């Protein structure tokens, strides 16, 4: 338990740093995980060079999905759109710093899936974005 519920995760879940919506924005996307109802929306603002200047997420769900979103949004500040597109599952797992079973993995990766679907301008967030 100490492992999975690292202080960091509980802390970010209870005290999120990047919760909110940005309107207007340059990128916005939302989706949910049908298996547990977790829902994430991500909003991003870019400067003229395609660098993330501001980002935020909203939604609801379990501690893993919400904390992962909060950590991910923090992480992309200052990154270019191409860098965002190149983010992987491992990046999120490194941010969380824990091992996850297959079900919780889906929770952890929901925000990345939503973010990348938005970054690529896709109509749908598919699992291969975070494979």
């Amino acid at each position: 338990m100490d492992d999975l519920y690292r202080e960091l995760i509980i802390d970010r879940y209870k005290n999120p740093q990047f919760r909110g919506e940005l309107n207007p924005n340059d990128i916005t996307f939302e989706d949910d995980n049908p298996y547990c109802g977790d829902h994430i929306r991500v909003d991003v603002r870019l400067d003229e060079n395609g660098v993330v200047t501001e980002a935020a997420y909203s939604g609801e769900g379990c501690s893993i999905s919400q904390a992962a979103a909060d950590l991910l949004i923090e992480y992309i500040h200052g990154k270019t759109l191409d860098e965002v597109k190149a983010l992987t599952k491992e990046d999120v797992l490194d941010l969380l710093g824990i091992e996850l079973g297959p079900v919780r993995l889906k929770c952890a990766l929901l925000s990345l899936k939503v973010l990348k679907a938005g970054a690529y301008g896709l109509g749908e967030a598919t699992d291969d974005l975070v494979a």
Partner: protein
Amino acid sequence: MKPTHPPKIVLDVQKIRADFPVLEREVRPGVPLIYLDSTATSQKPRQVLEAMDRFYRRTNANIHRGIHTLAEEATAGYEAARERIARFIGAAAAHEVIFVRNTTEAINLVAYSWGRANLNAGDVIVLTEMEHHSNLVPWQMLAAELDLRLEFIPVTPEGLLDLDAYHRLLDLHPKLVTFTHMSNVLGTINPAQEIIAAAHAVGAVTLVDGAQSVPHLPVDVQTLGADFLAFSGHKMLGPSGIGVLYGRGELLEAMPPFLGGGDMIKRVELRSFSVNALPYKFEAGTPAIAEAVGLGAAVEYLAAIGMEAVEQYEHEMIAYVLERLEEIPGVRVFGPEAQHKGAVAAFTLPEAHAHDISQVLDDFGIAVRAGHHCAMPLHTKFGIPATARASFYIYNTRQEVDRLVEGIYKVKEIFG
């Protein structure tokens, strides 16, 4: 369902626990397993495992039409299991018991075979809002194919079926009424006999999803009056890979085959075939032979305890569970009070998502399920995406309930 004079027989839970090898497991060193997920699948007593192992080590052969000793013994074992199961549910004849993979396949068999032969555009099927996806999606698929109309008996806020609404739906003269005998989320035990009698009064055929009732209550198809009853071996101490469709003989006789292949035929030419007699008509290809033998042993195990004793034990258990859960601030348990309910408690906490509850409990070795439990429409109705669900069987103890309660307090501490 409740016997008016509850039998005196009490179930010896410690003796039962000793039959279940998995209960000796430690999930992690020093953390013994507390298995509260029997609604998803039950554990298996060594009697069942040994019956299958013995089959494979002594008798294994393909059944039907084999003359050699092993084939004859295997056939006899397979058919003896069918007979034992037929007796267990009160079927009039063993050939009314069709072996399938699980409840889901049983229901699909009825939809594909009976449904496509008997239903036409505009026909009404009555279901309930508390169905498991397995008794919902097959009918949605059939409705899309044949242009049928699906109507649902509403679930009340207490988690009961609205029977007045049901009686109004019967004015639509449904061709089929199908419902779960016991909800896998709310635990609600529906008044099956009453629902079936009313359905028959308007000429509807009835299918009972017995996935949760057959393992936990005395279920007798004659008393119920059910035309079809579907259930899964793995939820009633039996192995995975085997389930049963019970059907009334005349109905099964009149139905076209579902899967084509070996053993379901009497005669085959290149361009035509004639079907075999029941139950083989519906058992194409090599069946789950060892699994049937295992399910036979499971039914023998349950029958020896007595389903009245199982029901009574679980009834006392759920009463205790609800009592203990209600003392925890914020816990919301879905479904009716103990009196209408099997040993299933799906609940939420304001502080923590169902996934987080399940994850923290797992750290204490407590296995509960989290999610929509294959009943999304019911969760939608109650406005929640997911619940944590603790479910109980004959091998669970009050001490385990106490550990669950401690675990939930721990969740509240972490997320509070």
